[in-house]
């Protein structure tokens, strides 16, 4: 539970606007914030209970409103969280699509990106925008470097898939330890990033972080979809993904195409990292573990290799997590991975994935 981004928040007592997540009115046993200091949610639990329990019209109405409000709030929170999963899932999906590798080091790129944002802002004292751009560039470069150093020879020599997978795990452990060495293993607080106003829609309170997450992820997905569908390099990516040998016969430098894919995927993870830091301003070297795993689940859920699929998977996972957290937070991860298991049983290719025909 410790590595769950939403959990530590309860303990740390951070910005009130984020504490929607740790809404504790439903969980008296945890009782830390026993008195509810969030007026916009104040009516929900009582109202909800009343709505279920009595036939009093006033309370029933109140209860439905409160429930709807809670439901919407948690859905938006879920979409905000899901946006981050989605951005990371895109990287998993793209890399898998082109070299059939589950790049388990991809989750750690979020960690690298987060530390880069922090480093550029607090140590180098640069403004936020440069920190974000710097972090994206650094991660894109790191992604290419990892591909070159760790995977390239395995891929060109047709190594067994298991070797690639284990190498990816090795890279993940390496990155985590490297950053522990560089920055220490303790949890670090991020400075405030995007200080935007929240939106109040009637009783519905939407944090700026959620809005930003959703908007940025949608823009990124559209951008990526356009890149893949319309540009020359996008066509090269699709060709390489389908048949690297035939792509070479078209004069495509598949090494460059693969490197480019890693760069874009890692860059997107860095965007996710910036959004993550903005939403949950605490980072540590192992933060990429669970985050990366969930993003991977999102990619599989949506259909690995599919860009809209990765996004859809991310949103579904985020919303499922947010809803569960509201009712019984101990079950959150069980639900998330339970969704994966059900999906694999029912439709192994994922929601938007295509059935892969084995080539003869």
């Amino acid at each position: 539970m410790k590595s769950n981004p939403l959990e530590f928040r309860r303990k740390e007592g951070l910005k009130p606007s984020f504490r929607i997540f740790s809404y504790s009115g439903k969980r008296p046993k945890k009782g830390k914030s026993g008195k509810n200091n969030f007026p916009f949610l104040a009516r929900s639990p009582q109202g909800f209970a009343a709505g279920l329990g009595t036939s009093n019209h006033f309370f029933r109405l109140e209860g439905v409103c409160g429930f709807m409000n809670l439901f919407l709030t948690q859905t938006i929170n879920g979409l905000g969280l899901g946006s981050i999963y989605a951005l990371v899932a895109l990287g998993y999906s793209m890399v898998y699509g082109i070299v059939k590798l589950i790049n388990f080091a991809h989750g750690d790129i979020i960690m690298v990106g987060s530390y880069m944002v922090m480093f550029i802002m607090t140590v180098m004292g640069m403004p936020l925008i440069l920190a974000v751009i710097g972090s994206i560039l650094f991660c894109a470069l790191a992604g290419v470097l990892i591909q070159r150093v760790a995977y390239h020879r395995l891929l060109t020599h047709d190594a067994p898939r298991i070797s690639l997978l284990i190498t990816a795990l090795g890279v993940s452990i390496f990155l985590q330890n490297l950053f522990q060495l560089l920055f220490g293993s303790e949890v670090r607080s991020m400075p405030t990033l995007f200080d935007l106003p929240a939106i109040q829609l009637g009783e519905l309170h939407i944090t700026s972080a959620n809005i930003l997450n959703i908007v940025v992820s949608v823009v990124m997905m559209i951008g990526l979809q356009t890149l893949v569908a319309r540009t020359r390099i996008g066509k090269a990516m699709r060709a390489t993904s389908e048949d690297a040998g035939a792509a070479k016969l078209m004069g495509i430098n598949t090494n460059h195409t693969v490197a480019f894919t890693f760069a874009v995927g890692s860059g997107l993870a860095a965007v996710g990292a910036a959004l993550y830091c903005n939403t949950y301003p605490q980072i540590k070297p192992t933060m990429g573990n669970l985050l990366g795993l969930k993003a991977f689940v999102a990619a599989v859920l949506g259909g690995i290799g599919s860009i809209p699929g990765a996004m859809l998977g991310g949103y579904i996972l985020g919303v499922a997590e947010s809803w569960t957290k509201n009712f019984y937070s101990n079950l959150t991860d069980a639900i998330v991975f339970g969704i994966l298991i059900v999906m694999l049983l029912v439709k192994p290719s994922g929601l938007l994935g295509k059935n892969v025909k084995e080539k003869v």
Partner: protein
Amino acid sequence: MALLTVKDLNVFYGNIHAIKGISFEVNEGEIVTLIGANGAGKTSTLHAISGLLRPKSGSITFDGNNLVTTEAHKILRLGLAQVPEGRRIFASLTVMENLELGAYIRAKENLDADFEQIFARLPRLKERRKQLAGTLSGGEQQMLAIGRALMSKPKMLLLDEPSMGLSPLLVGEIFDIIKSVNQGGVTVLLNEQNAKKALEIANRAYVLETGSIAMSGEASALAQDEKVRQAYLGG
């Protein structure tokens, strides 16, 4: 002067000696065919030429360039295109996108005239240009693979088993296309199991047997040869 010269080529798959020191050449404007049974080494030879396989030793020279040290994606830029065995079109891309990828190395040129030319030669592709390539029939896929290779405006075309899996009628159609491509000035090296058809359109032929060249000569002469007739032409 030969356009393509292969000399003492040796290719290994692990310990298996697939190509055992073969030498042959293709002159400009010719159709040359490599015939032989499954596993004779025809595809390995073509893959070595187009850079998908690295030979152990030997030299491959195309138009004055040493192909052995040239990366696969650069070989097309020298004017040598390949229509690979099994067609290997990009099934999840549209017919048009496949053709555009064929012209990948000509990114900055206007391709409209080329598309028209391809569609004039292969009218079936025009009807289906927005369809996913994977939904085409076998014959159409083969035409697409040829069209795709022609989009790079090659000097020479390598074709690997273009008749494989096609009905006799379509085989005839594909061979007519190859012939017309050659008449348009493109040199052709053709791998075929269908020796009868290949010898009909080729100028010269080499017979491959277990990695070595067993016979070579004018296609018309080989078609009359008793041994070739018995082994490859069904008596």
